[in-house]
């Protein structure tokens, strides 16, 4: 009999032995080493064992009787120490075993982040039954932190949660399972996990694990500290190749094999996760089984060759229905087909290239997954069915995407009209009670009867309830990505509590994978205005000026404008500006209409340095580039002017200090004039204050651009404090309600000044608006110059590489 030694009893070698004993019983005398003190079991079923849905006994694939029946000598719990290829002998802890042919199936080792504290008691990986049992042994209520939001980490998290632990998942990239899923599917997965009580933190980088001997907490790069009794590292695996390396076999990223699974030694073979073939590594079970089959044939001296195939992924967490297959990495000439059904939480995306399906991601409804997978694997020509492909094999006559889906998905208690507090259920009641047009619904419920921005949504509720009996007057959609108008999107972000861009794209049925240059900046603004604490501003969704904090000029250079509070400056500030202008070769220095100085023609890569210099002199960004507060123009008021009635300069500075840094739907300019002679031109500003003997006249909705308009009176108040309160409340109302890129005068034309005056006249509403504005300012009132001069972010203003230098060397 031929002596075959197998090192490692994993899924690949288990399958190999089955093939060998079935095809040629009695031909091999097998010795099976395994470092784990047990034989082959179905490792991919460890997750159901962890969650309690299966027991270990149920996942054993080969028991003692099976090994005995096939004459396998089991050396379980024994590590192989050495392979002597010249003598063809394997050395274990209890002695040598000679072989004729050898199979290395050592699998992989979990990767442990080498951060401080990784060796503390209570920090474990998730790889084998012992790891699983250690997790199972934790008492309910244990605080567990799972590092890694990939397949393995999430299965561990779900299992631990089912065992009653408090679970937090930390994931380095922006969305879960980023290798298999796109952000939209990642968002749905996250929502599903959060519904089960699992906390998820993305872009979370672990800096250290704290504890005295035993783990006590996990500390993140941003300083967050998460108390923890158990830390599970599931950040990835590395092929286990030490033994092969020490024996002199050719090892790249893993043990290199040919298509017959032969290593650089003709009598030594390798199979499974420890193998590298044609530059590829393998971690999923399907290719490992293919390898086992090929290796069995090779050992039986039959011809066979391994060819890697397309793979698909499913997550083994009961109730999380996701599917991902094929290739999403870079390629030419690709096109996406996206389908979303917000009501049912379904997302599907197909990637098509050259009339072939090359990738598919699905969430919520994965029934067609295998059909799509088949199309990918077989490279089927899909040109004929391209239009209806996304509906799956059952289609033919299926519906197109329903533009009313987002509204249809709203629960009955979702608020449609914010002004009058009317929810969807109330509107449906009214419709069913006979109110079958907009006017009747308004009469019955007051919905859309105040500012009117929810009119589109009320119409959609009418259409969804009445069907063909109601025709919607088409509102202008935001862009080609959606049928919803800006007003609809704003309202739905509030009533459905959508707090991320993927949430908006999914729940509102966006037709593109991640929006476009029109909708992204708008949605980014709506989210940061409505959820200042929960939502994080996305620089990649901002127009260049707001990302670079400088105005781009037609030659690609930038302008730099420091803030001059109320137009007041000093000799030392002017000196710092002059020095910066000289040092950075600024070609043009100009006084702006907003009472400050513009340095034009600064090179992009110089921005962080010039900002640092200006910062050092106490100057901060003037936000001359932003959809936000620009300047507060003032006259000199009572300080110097013989006509001045109030301290207009002081009030201007006070307003500017309160409002700066806030993002608004469009730019906002203010002015304060000290008397009706109006030297500060306050009557053509977004908010213009004219001081009179008896107090302050606050006007709003002025403009002096493409349209020229005079302000209309918002209020007349007696004190500076009241002026500031009304101004802040007005700006916040504008921030919460206006369409992106509508200046206040355009917004006022839609909602009516009367509605604004009514709303702001209520002291409680006014102070609530001020409170919300101030809360937002706790996040956003920071000098972007100071933020971006830090070395890390400053680097991003420079080219990533300069190949002109390299070539010269």
């Amino acid at each position, binding site marked *: 009999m031929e002596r075959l030694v197998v090192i490692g009893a994993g899924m690949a070698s288990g399958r190999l032995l089955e093939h060998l004993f079935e095809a040629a019983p009695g031909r091999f005398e097998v010795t099976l080493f395994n470092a784990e003190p047990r034989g082959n079991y179905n490792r991919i079923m460890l997750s159901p064992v962890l969650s309690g849905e299966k027991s270990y006994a149920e996942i054993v694939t080969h028991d003692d009787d099976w090994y005995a029946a096939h004459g396998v000598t089991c050396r379980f719990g024994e590590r192989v120490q050495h392979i002597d290829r010249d003598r063809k002998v394997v050395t274990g802890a209890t002695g040598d075993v000679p072989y004729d042919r050898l199979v290395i199936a050592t699998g992989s080792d979990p990767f442990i982040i080498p951060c401080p504290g990784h060796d503390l008691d209570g920090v474990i990986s998730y790889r084998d039954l012992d790891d699983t049992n250690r997790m199972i042994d934790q008492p309910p209520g244990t605080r567990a932190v799972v590092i890694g939001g990939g397949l393995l980490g999430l299965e561990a998290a779900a299992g631990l949660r089912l065992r009653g632990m408090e679970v937090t998942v930390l994931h380095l990239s922006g969305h879960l399972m980023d290798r298999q899923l796109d952000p939209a599917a990642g968002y749905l997965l996250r929502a599903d996990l959060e519904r089960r009580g699992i906390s998820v933190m993305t872009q979370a980088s672990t800096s250290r694990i704290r504890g005295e001997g035993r783990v006590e907490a996990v500390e993140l790069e941003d300083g967050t500290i998460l108390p923890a009794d158990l830390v599970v590292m599931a950040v990835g695996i590395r092929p286990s190749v030490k033994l092969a390396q020490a024996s002199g076999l050719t090892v790249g990223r893993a043990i290199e094999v040919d298509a017959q699974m032969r290593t650089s030694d003709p009598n030594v073979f390798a199979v499974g996760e420890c193998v590298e073939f044609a530059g590829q590594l393998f971690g999923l079970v399907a290719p490992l089984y293919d390898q086992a089959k090929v290796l069995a044939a090779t050992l039986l001296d039959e011809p066979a060759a391994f060819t890697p195939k397309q793979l698909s992924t499913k997550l083994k967490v009961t109730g999380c229905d996701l599917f991902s297959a094929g290739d999403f990495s870079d390629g030419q000439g690709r096109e996406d087909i996206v389908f979303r059904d917000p009501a049912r939480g379904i997302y599907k995306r197909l990637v098509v290239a050259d009339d072939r399906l090359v990738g598919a991601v699905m969430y919520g409804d994965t029934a067609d997954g295998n059909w799509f997978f088949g199309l990918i694997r077989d490279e089927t020509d899909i040109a004929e069915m391209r239009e209806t492909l996304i509906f799956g094999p059952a289609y033919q006559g299926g519906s197109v995407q329903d533009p009313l889906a987002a509204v249809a998905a709203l629960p009955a208690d979702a608020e449609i009209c914010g002004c009058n507090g009317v929810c969807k259920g109330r509107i449906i009641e009214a419709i069913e009670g006979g109110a079958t047009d907009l006017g009747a619904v308004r009469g019955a419920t007051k919905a859309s009867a105040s500012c009117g921005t929810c009119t589109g949504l009320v119409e959609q509720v009418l259409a969804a309830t009445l069907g063909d009996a109601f025709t919607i007057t088409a509102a202008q959609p935001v862009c080609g990505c959606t049928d919803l108008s800006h007003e609809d999107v704003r309202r739905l972000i509030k009533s459905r509590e959508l707090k991320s861009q993927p949430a908006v794209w999914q729940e509102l049925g966006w037709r*593109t994978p991640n929006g476009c240059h029109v909708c992204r900046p708008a949605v980014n603004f709506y989210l940061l205005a409505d959820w200042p604490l929960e939502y994080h501003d996305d620089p990649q969704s901002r127009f260049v000026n707001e990302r670079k904090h400088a105005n781009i000029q037609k030659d690609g250079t930038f302008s730099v404008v420091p803030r001059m509070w109320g137009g007041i400056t000093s000799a030392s500030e002017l000196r710092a500006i002059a020095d910066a202008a000289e040092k950075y070769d600024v070609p043009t220095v100009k006084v702006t209409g907003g009472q400050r100085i513009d340095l034009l023609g600064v090179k992009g890569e110089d921005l962080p340095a010039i900002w640092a210099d200006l910062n050092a002199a106490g100057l901060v960004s003037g936000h001359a580039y932003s959809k936000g507060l620009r300047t507060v123009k003032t006259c000199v008021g009572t300080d110097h002017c013989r006509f001045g009635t109030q301290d207009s300069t002081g009030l201007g500075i006070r307003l500017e200090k309160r409002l700066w840094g806030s993002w608004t739907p469009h730019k906002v300019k203010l002015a304060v004039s000290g008397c009706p002679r109006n030297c500060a031109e306050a009557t053509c500003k977004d908010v213009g204050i004219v001081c009179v003997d008896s107090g302050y006249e606050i006007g709003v909705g002025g403009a002096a651009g493409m349209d020229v308009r005079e302000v209309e009176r918002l209020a007349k108040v007696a004190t500076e404090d009241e002026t500031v309160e009304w101004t802040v409340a007005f700006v916040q109302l504008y921030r919460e309600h206006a369409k992106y890129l509508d200046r206040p005068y355009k917004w006022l034309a839609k909602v009516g000044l009367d509605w604004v005056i009514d709303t702001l006249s209520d002291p409680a509403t006014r102070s609530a608006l001020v409170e919300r504005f101030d809360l937002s300012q706790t996040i956003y009132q920071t000098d972007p110059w100071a933020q971006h001069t830090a070395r890390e972010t400053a680097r991003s203003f420079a080219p990533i590489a300069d190949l002109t230098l390299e070539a010269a060397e």
Partner: protein
Amino acid sequence: MSWIDIGALGDVPVRGARLVKTHAGCIALFRTTETEIFATSNTCAHKGGPLSEGIVHDRKVTCPLHNWVWSLETGEAQGADQGRIATYPVRIEDGRILIDGDAIDRRSAA
């Protein structure tokens, strides 16, 4: 092809871009997803706008100057606009971004 390592994947933000200076002019490096990179000329064929400063969406970029939209895969102008920008082969290996040096040299020789 001669692949040149130009930096770490993590140095380019998702749906963002960075610049590479070369003898053939500036090349913009776009990261469209966690694992997808494209390289094109940084110069908009319309009025020379810096494309690396544009908003990246799907596999496209919008020029910050006049909103021309370019396909990062083919270099073709999208929508009603007509034109083409150069594209360059790039790939990702072990978290590093590699660009085809020959393609750049061909451009600078031409």
